[in-house]
């Protein structure tokens, strides 16, 4: 009993250090040795670059071979129009397993909906009529906004003030990275964290 209590005391801080994730907004195996959290905003051009250029490379190099688990985190920037609405649809789509196509579409069409506000038009284009209905209903669920708020607060608590911000976690230690790291350095960092 004492052993269990001691183990619990040792493990609790580790569990607290690694926040809960929405598995529908993640790629890879949750048991991978390295976890990458990506705090991003759908209206941010650097986030679009990361999503379209860096993320596929990371998936190819580390996710397909089970070395990394990548989790998307909502960090809606203050004062950016329509970003809350976009996150509402994306998180709602995650609940029916359609996060990736919605996120891809939102980034691809960022220059349009961030200006004209037609967020739903972009989201609806990649969903079937049945899924559109589900996402519309789910986006009104208070739980969806609560999830966005919780992830934003978590980002603020981690000292994040811009997007995209990447946080690597390995062996229970979190490493917030400088903005837009060069891929060669990011790779060196990840390789250094992987078990030898």
């Amino acid at each position, binding site marked *: 009993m004492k052993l269990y209590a001691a183990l619990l005391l040792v493990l609790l801080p580790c569990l607290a250090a690694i926040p809960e994730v929405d598995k529908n907004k993640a790629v890879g195996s949750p048991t991978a040795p390295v976890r990458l959290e990506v705090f991003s905003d759908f209206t941010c051009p650097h986030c679009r670059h990361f999503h379209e250029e860096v993320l596929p490379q990371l998936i190819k190099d580390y996710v397909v071979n089970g070395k990394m688990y990548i989790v998307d985190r909502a960090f809606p920037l203050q004062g950016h129009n329509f970003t809350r609405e976009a996150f509402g649809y994306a998180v709602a789509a995650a609940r029916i397993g359609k996060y990736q196509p919605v996120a891809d579409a939102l980034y691809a069409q960022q220059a349009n909906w961030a200006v004209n506000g037609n967020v739903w038009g972009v989201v609806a284009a990649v969903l079937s009529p049945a899924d559109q209905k589900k996402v519309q209903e789910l986006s009104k669920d208070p739980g969806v906004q609560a999830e966005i708020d919780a992830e934003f607060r978590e980002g603020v608590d981690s000292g994040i003030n*811009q997007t995209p911000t990447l946080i690597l976690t390995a062996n229970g230690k979190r490493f917030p990275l400088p903005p837009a790291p060069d891929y060669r350095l990011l790779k060196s960092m990840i390789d250094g964290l992987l078990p030898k």
Partner: protein
Amino acid sequence: MASSQSKALYWTVVVLRLIVGGVFAYAGYLKLREPWALFAMGIDSYHLIPFRFVEPLARTLPAAEVAIGLWLMTGFWPRIPSALISLLLMVFFAAMVHAKIAGQQIDCGCFGPGDPISKWTLLRDGSLLAASLLVTWQAFRRSPKKS
């Protein structure tokens, strides 16, 4: 009167030498505890150094900071470590001011990650630079045999 003033200056410089050397060594130690690539990303975020120099710098600078900082603290041949620290602090301070003026929201990288460039970090590093310059000036004013 003049003697008590020079004594006060002597002890002020000794204390400043210990502070500057200690802070410098501590900053290097904190960076050595983290993966070198994390510091390399911090250097690269300033966009001031060609990429091919980033890795060698990130791998060597923290150990050099520890070595030079400890050397200055010993007071042995203080001209070299104090001049080196002053030179490095001038470069760091100029890079931080440049980043602040350019509106870059980046970490200072002075004591490892999580230290964004702000008025406070500029004041801190500026004060350290002023102290280091005083120590260097005194080191060159005195006989090389004395600290």
